[in-house]
């Protein structure tokens, strides 16, 4: 990302010294967003972090010569007071913090939706906000009512009943998007939503579930020839940074994927070649769909004796063959992936090798 040219403030909705708040700034993507903003010449960055956060990812950004304006604000987004304090006078909020590791819907909801509401309320109180950048996910798309192989873009419908997906993260992200939309509609908060695909790069563990899942000592390869909607972490971070700065995109949704997406089969093969070898078993789509259907029916019949971890809604969203586009991102934000998928994967595999990470 070092080759990003610093852009004059006239290209953006805020000036270089206007305060920017980044939540989740110590995380995998958030720390790169901080770097991307520094690269773009912004000097007044407020990084919100929980007291329990590890600061090592943010360290590389705060060690830079131009990082004197990077301030770390400790707090908890579940605290309205902490949000009010953090959002004071900010021009743009990049909201990356989320309850991504939560298994229960209420926990994920609290850490995604209640926190987002607190931030939006804080922004309303200060009345200085020019844009709220909401980081959503590809997980929110339902992808049900269309044949396989079709394009999934920003016009596709979002899951109407996310609770049936059996995935707390999806539920929370759908509800988070709804509350951002609601505050935009009711109170005029300018907002942009980004929905990244699978964000990968050094620091990411394992292999995406879109390729398959490891269970009982064997890796079930479920993706087959599906394109995997990946985005390299630095590419994704730059898209997020631009979404908070470019004029004329309020209310828009952008999907974030790179060019030249690898197929599931290719990604798995390269992973095995470059990181470590393990046994995998290909499960054809018709069979994975039938098994998902069977699991869902059993879960319902048995009143949840097995939780509905596999179901048809999830199959459609994750394993159905689908193509993806980043055209809107390129056209409206002027974004293009600076790290090619080939280079990105090599960096990722190398980092996995060094850390001994496996699927």
């Amino acid at each position, binding site marked *: 990302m070092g080759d990003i040219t610093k852009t004059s403030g006239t290209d953006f909705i805020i000036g270089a010294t206007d305060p920017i708040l980044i939540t989740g700034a110590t995380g995998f993507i958030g720390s790169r967003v901080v770097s991307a903003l520094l690269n773009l010449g912004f000097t007044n960055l407020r990084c919100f972090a929980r007291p329990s956060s590890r600061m090592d990812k943010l360290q590389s950004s705060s060690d830079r010569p131009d990082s004197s304006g990077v301030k770390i604000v400790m707090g908890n987004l579940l605290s309205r007071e902490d949000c009010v304090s953090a959002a004071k006078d900010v021009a743009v909020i990049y909201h990356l913090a989320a309850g991504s590791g939560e298994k229960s819907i209420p*926990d994920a909801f609290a850490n995604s939706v209640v926190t987002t509401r607190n931030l939006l309320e804080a922004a309303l109180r200060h009345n200085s906000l020019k844009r709220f950048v909401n980081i959503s996910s590809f997980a929110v798309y339902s992808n049900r009512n269309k044949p396989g192989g079709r394009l999934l873009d920003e016009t596709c419908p979002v899951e109407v009943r996310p609770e049936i997906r059996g995935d707390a993260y999806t539920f929370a992200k759908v509800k988070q998007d709804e509350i951002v939309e609601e505050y935009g509609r009711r109170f005029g908060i300018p907002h942009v939503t980004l929905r990244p695909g699978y964000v990968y790069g050094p620091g990411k563990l394992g292999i995406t579930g879109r390729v398959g899942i490891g269970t009982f000592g064997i890796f079930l390869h479920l993706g087959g020839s599906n394109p995997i909607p990946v985005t390299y972490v630095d590419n994704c971070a730059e898209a997020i940074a631009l979404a908070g700065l470019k004029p004329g995109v309020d209310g828009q949704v952008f999907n974030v994927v790179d060019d030249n997406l690898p197929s599931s089969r290719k990604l798995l093969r390269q992973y095995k070649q470059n990181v470590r070898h393990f046994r995998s078993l290909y499960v054809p789509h018709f069979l994975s769909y039938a098994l998902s259907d069977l699991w869902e029916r059993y879960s319902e019949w048995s*009143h949840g004796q097995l939780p509905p971890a596999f179901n048809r809604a999830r199959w459609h969203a994750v394993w159905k063959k689908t193509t993806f586009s980043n055209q809107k991102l390129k056209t409206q934000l002027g974004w293009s992936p600076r790290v090619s998928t080939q280079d990105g994967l090599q960096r990722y595999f190398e980092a996995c090798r060094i850390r001994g990470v496996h699927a």
Partner: protein
Amino acid sequence: MLKVAIVGCGKIADEHAALIKRIPGSEIVGVCDREPLMGKQLADRFPVKRCYSDLQDLLSDSKPDVVHITTPPQSHFSLAKLCLESGSNVYVEKPFTVYEHEARTLIATANKKGLKITAGHDMQFCHAARRMRSIVQSGYLGEGPVHMDSYFCYPLGKSAYAGALLGDKKHWVRSLPGKLLQNIISHGIARIAEFMRSESPQVIVHGFTSPLLESLGETEIVDEVRVIIAAEDRTTAYFTFSSQMRPALHQFRIYGTKNGLILDQDQETVIRVPGEMMVSYLEKFVPPVKTAKQYLGNVGANLRKFLARDFHMKAGRNFLIEGFYDSITKGTEPPIPYREILLTAKIMDLIFGQLAPQSHSRPDSGEGMPLASSISNS
């Protein structure tokens, strides 16, 4: 139709709501959470018609027959008291209350109002625990019990809960007198309380912060505890809580004058341990075969229940809720005797009372055995 309400709409409330929905003759008429968004997400999914952010409003409007309290423990006493005084029966998640005197007040209030109250000691009713109870009631132990041994471990360090707790110096668990222990050990203590015939046992506690937590900079949380409990009638018990030992056992062993029993909650097994020994070398060969046969029997029993879709992870809670509702509608005794709830609360009070002044001590602090060996009773 039994009208049910839930107060506190977090993770545990979800599990309650899912179970209540399946109980014939019951209906969730309202949910309540101080955070309106949390109440709404629960109400939307189950679905429930009325959603409140004030308990008094819920009690006045919905007039529930039963209220499930699934809030953090600090609020259990005040919320349960309000519900009882408003005429609702109450199911309080574990730990029942923060202090024993609060437990006494709640039970006295319930009795005075002619209402029922229970504690969420649902693991007392998992399939294996019910099997064990019926074996004990059949007289298998002989006289006794003579001694009990309860393990209730929690592998701290892996779960999201542990991460949140360790990382957050303001986490609500830290403000409990027993901190982490208070939110977890009541299940293991209740097992002992069920069979201990004493109102005022003697309790000796040894507790410390594990080396792992200490290396993470944790100084407040005691995550290793060993307890000796002794009743006036010479019945004794050991209680072990550990965040570090593996396997992280959830076991209960009870020994009478004739035989013993071993309950493994994780594996849902109950093993009979005969008191009579066989002669000579036979003791080396025959009992292991008989024990293996018992394990196979447990596998069969578990499998049959699974095939009959009666082997849910929360089967104990389901049984407890159904039993509690039955006690309300049929006027029978509640599934957990009040004596057992109070004794559990008392033992926990005594444990935390001894741990409080020693939580900053270390086993290698050169002060002999400073952690240990506080003795107290009522």
